[in-house]
C-alpha cells in the first residue's frame, strides 16, 4: 500500500538521484550515444521538482501525469518521450486514486513498461532501458503474487534491474543512437537501463525508510 504523499517523496528522491548521477550517466552516453542522457534527464527532473508543490493535493493519477508532462516538455532527448510516456501511462491506471494496493502498483508498473515499448517501438534485448525495466517488473509482479510485502518485492525488482544493466554490457545495441555503433556498443552498459535502475533504487530507498 502506498499513498499520494509517498509517491511525491519517491519522485523527489528520483530527481535527486538522477541529479547526483548525471555526470556518470552522461559519461556512459558519451561512450555509445550522443552524450546528453545525464544532462537531459536531470534538466527534466529539475522541472519536475519545481512542480512538486503543486501536486500536494492531487490524486496519484494526476501526479504521475504531471511528472510525465514535465519530462516530455523539458528533457529534449529520447528519454523525455520515453519516461514521459511511462509516467503518463502509469498515471492513466491510477486516475482518481489517493492510495494504491501492491497489486495496483504492479498494474501501474506494467502500464509504464508497456508505454516505453510502445513509444520506442522496442523490446527487451535491444540494449535500452527495457533491459532493466522488464526484468524489474517481472520480479516485482512475481514478488507481489508470491505474497511478499512491498519493500521485499521492490528489492527484488531493483536486483533484477541491476542484473539487467549488467546484461546490457553483453549485447549489441539494435535500438537508439547506440545501434549505429553495432558491435562497438559491446562491453558498454546502457545509460537508459542505468537511469531506470536509479529511479527504482530511489523508490526503494524511500519505502525502506517507512
Amino acid at each position, binding site marked *: 500500500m502506498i499513498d499520494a504523499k509517498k509517491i511525491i517523496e519517491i519522485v523527489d528522491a528520483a530527481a535527486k538521484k538522477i541529479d547526483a548521477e548525471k555526470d556518470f550517466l552522461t559519461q556512459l552516453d558519451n561512450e555509445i550515444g*550522443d552524450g546528453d542522457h545525464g544532462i537531459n534527464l536531470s534538466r527534466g527532473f529539475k522541472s519536475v521538482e519545481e512542480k512538486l508543490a503543486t501536486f500536494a493535493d492531487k490524486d496519484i493519477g494526476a501526479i504521475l501525469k504531471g511528472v510525465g508532462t514535465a519530462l516530455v*516538455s523539458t528533457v*529534449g532527448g529520447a528519454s523525455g*518521450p520515453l519516461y514521459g*510516456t511511462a509516467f503518463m501511462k502509469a498515471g492513466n491506471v491510477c486516475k482518481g486514486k489517493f492510495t494504491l494496493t501492491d497489486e495496483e502498483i504492479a498494474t501501474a508498473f506494467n502500464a509504464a513498461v508497456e508505454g516505453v515499448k510502445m513509444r520506442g517501438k522496442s523490446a527487451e534485448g535491444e540494449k535500452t532501458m527495457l533491459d532493466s525495466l522488464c526484468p524489474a517488473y517481472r520480479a516485482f509482479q512475481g514478488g507481489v503474487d508470491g505474497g511478499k510485502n512491498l519493500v521485499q518485492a521492490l528489492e527484488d525488482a531493483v536486483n533484477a534491474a541491476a542484473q539487467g544493466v549488467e546484461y546490457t554490457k553483453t549485447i549489441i545495441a539494435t535500438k537508439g543512437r547506440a545501434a549505429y555503433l553495432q558491435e562497438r556498443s559491446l562491453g558498454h552498459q546502457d545509460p537508459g537501463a542505468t537511469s531506470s535502475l536509479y529511479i527504482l533504487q530511489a523508490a526503494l530507498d524511500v519505502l525502506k525508510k517507512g
Partner: protein
Amino acid sequence: MVGIVIVSHSQKLAEGVMELAQMTAANVPIAAAGGLENGALGTSYDKIKNAVESIYTADGVIVLADIGSAVMTAEMVLEDMERDNVKLIDCPLIEGAVVAAIESIGGRTLNEIIEKLETV
C-alpha cells in the same frame, strides 16, 4: 494548402531543410521546429506544437522528423492534439520535405501528398 513542419535535433538543420523546400515552392506554408528553446541540440515538445499551430489550416499538416527523440516527441504532440489531419510521415527528411512542398503548392490534398511521400 497543406502545411509542412520540419522537426530536427538541430535548429540549423530544420531551417536548412525548410529553406531547401522553399526553393522550389516559395509560398508553401512551412515551419521549422529544430533544437531546444536555447538553441542547443535536442527536441522541444513546445517548439513542435507551436510550429504545427502556426501553419495549421483545415487542409492539414504533414510533420517530418529526423531521428530518435524528434520522432517520438512529434508523436506525442500529435497524440495530444487529437487532430486527424495532422500526420507524422516516416520518410527521408530532405527529399520528403521537397516533395511535400511541391505537391502542396500544386494543390494536392493531405492524403495525396502522404501517398506520394510513401514512394520517396
